């Protein structure tokens, strides 16, 4: 089942800024979906449209099988906005109760969930302290706890690891994996490519208000798979014909079939070449991202 299914989302701001230009995305139940893109690509705008914070100029599709903009659906969606600010006069527990009540969570459920979430997010002992005494990382974790107060089917997190230290990031990653195991769908919006690569089942890359790539990381990097053979000394003449690319002492063979390189290895050995290493190589998310984003242009939305 698709928890998010949107087609041709358009957003043109008053200043004629074309923030989204026909975005279509599908997010399936029980998966972690990552949305990547440079600053100004329109990622947050898309998330805000899903959460009714921004009105789309044009939108069709569903959120949890209900039309986008349906308020009642938001009872089952947890959301952590980027750069969120909690009221300074509230304690951690009060924050969870307040936003839980706004999400129509009953008093009993709020009581039980608040403590378990604070514990789960590593904020035990801080529940009665005012949020203005929290560190950035703690506020981020409290934000995630807030998003989980209504026991959501879909969790939308905008830069959830922003300001969180490496240990905290790992904890959040583990938490996201646990939440996926529980059957929740997670929509992640982040700049941190390595983070996303570790947890996302599928990703979409947005550039200038358009989705340029979408799919599993495996499928998106399939064409980039190759073997690299590092040779010592002079390369034999025949290597140019047998290999797809040669870069100094590096022989590159495209594809992910290991049988393809066996004859090359045999021939190198018979020619008494010293093979320093044989390495299967695959494009990582960062390479994919850099390929998708043309940095020769100015990043940002289209005017």
């Amino acid at each position, binding site marked *: 089942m698709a928890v998010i299914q949107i087609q041709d989302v358009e957003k043109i*701001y008053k200043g004629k800024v074309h923030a989204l230009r026909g975005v279509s995305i599908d997010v399936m139940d029980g998966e972690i979906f990552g949305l990547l893109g440079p600053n100004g690509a329109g990622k947050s705008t898309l998330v*805000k449209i899903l*959460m*009714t*914070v*921004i*009105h789309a100029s044009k939108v069709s599709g569903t959120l949890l099988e209900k039309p986008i903009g349906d*308020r*009642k*659906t*938001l*009872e089952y*969606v947890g*959301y952590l*906005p980027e*750069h*969120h*600010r*909690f*009221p*300074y*006069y*509230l304690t951690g527990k*009060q924050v969870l*109760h*307040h*936003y839980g*009540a*706004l*999400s*129509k969570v*009953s008093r009993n459920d709020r009581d039980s969930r608040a403590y378990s979430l604070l514990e789960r997010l590593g904020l035990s002992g801080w529940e009665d302290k005012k949020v203005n005494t929290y560190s950035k990382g703690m506020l981020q974790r409290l934000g995630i706890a*807030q998003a989980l107060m209504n026991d959501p089917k879909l969790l939308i997190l905008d830069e959830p690891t922003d300001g969180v230290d490496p240990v905290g990031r790992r904890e959040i990653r583990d938490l996201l994996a646990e939440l996926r195991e529980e059957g929740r769908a997670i929509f992640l919006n982040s700049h941190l490519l390595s983070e996303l690569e570790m947890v996302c089942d599928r990703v979409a890359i947005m550039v200038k208000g358009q989705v340029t790539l979408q799919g599993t990381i495996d499928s998106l990097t399939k064409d980039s798979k190759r073997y690299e053979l590092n040779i010592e000394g002079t390369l034999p003449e025949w290597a140019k014909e047998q290999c797809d690319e040669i870069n100094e002492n590096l022989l590159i063979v495209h594809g992910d079939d290991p049988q393809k390189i066996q004859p090359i290895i045999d021939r190198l050995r018979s020619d008494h070449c010293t093979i320093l290493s044989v390495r299967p190589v695959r494009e990582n998310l960062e390479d994919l991202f850099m390929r998708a984003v043309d940095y020769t242009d100015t990043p940002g939305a289209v005017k």
Partner: protein
Amino acid sequence: MMQFKALLLDAYRQLSAAKLFWLTIGLSTLVVLLYGSIGFDKNGVTLFYGLWDVESKELNAGSPWARGLYIGIYSSFLVNIWLAWIATVLALISTCSIFPEFVHSGSIELTISKPIGRLKLFFSKYLVSLLFVVLQVTIFCIGIFLCVGFRVGDWNPMIFSAIPIVTIFFSYLFSVCVFVGMLSRSGITALLVTGVFWMGLWSVQTAESIMNNFITRYKVDIEHFEEGLIKSEAALAIIEEKSPDDSRIEGRRTRIANFRTDIEESKEALAKLDGWHGPISWILTISPKTSQTIGLLDRWLSDPDGFDIGAIMNGDMEAFYEDIEDMEEIDSTTRGARERETMRRMREDYETRSLWYVLGTSLLFEGFVLGLASCYFCRKDF
């Protein structure tokens, strides 16, 4: 309802976290304590809990004037000066940043992404933001109620009518504060614009009141002059009939001519004033009537048998003297009589203005401003 309760609780926490809230509560308590320090015994008035005695034959324990004075101090001074000015300014300072904070980037996304409609959210937030004034005035009224009860034995529940009256009065200004705060996202800007708006309202109301005073005075003058003219003409006719050579005839004719001139001049002045008064009355009709709203309390609390301090402050000495003859001894001149009549009519005019005129039209204005603000809030991309 759960969401409204959450917003209400949040508003209370926000207020209780503000030092100004407690400062205002403290000042209100001080005002109530000062008010309570005024008492009456059989010899007269006691001040500062008996530290200072003022002997009086009229104002003493059990006298209806004592009751009138005591309630009059509340309705004419404490409400008009403390609640309607000082406490309102403090309330505006305390609450001006509520909506700018509410729509601040990072906060608003958390709230409007919840399953609550924007319109419901806006009006719920607006209503709970009035909590500051409701709490302040309620605490103040409880104190005043106890003071009046213990001091003059009048357990008057109408004292609590200040709660809705002052809250409604504050809401006229707060609606503007909310609208500007939403547009500018700045509490200071909202406060300044609201202050200017309040001064504007005060100016319009004062101008209307002054013009109304002149118009009423000219009307009274014309009536008196016409009455004088009729009497003088009748007297002249009698004199002329009895003795055509009477030396008083010339004097009477001069007086009649003077009356006619005065009537003409008054009518001319009245016509000029009417030309100005019309537009100002229109502006007043469509704008919030802050003074008249607060004046409702004085109207509802005034004691027909007692000492009406509000009326005395307005120059109506009739309120102080039970016997009209006493009054005439003090104020027996024709000008004095005309002024007294002017004040009486003006007071009657304001007191007979309907609740619809005072509250209805003011609330319509507030509704219009809130309509604009809510429309902006519902359509805005945050």
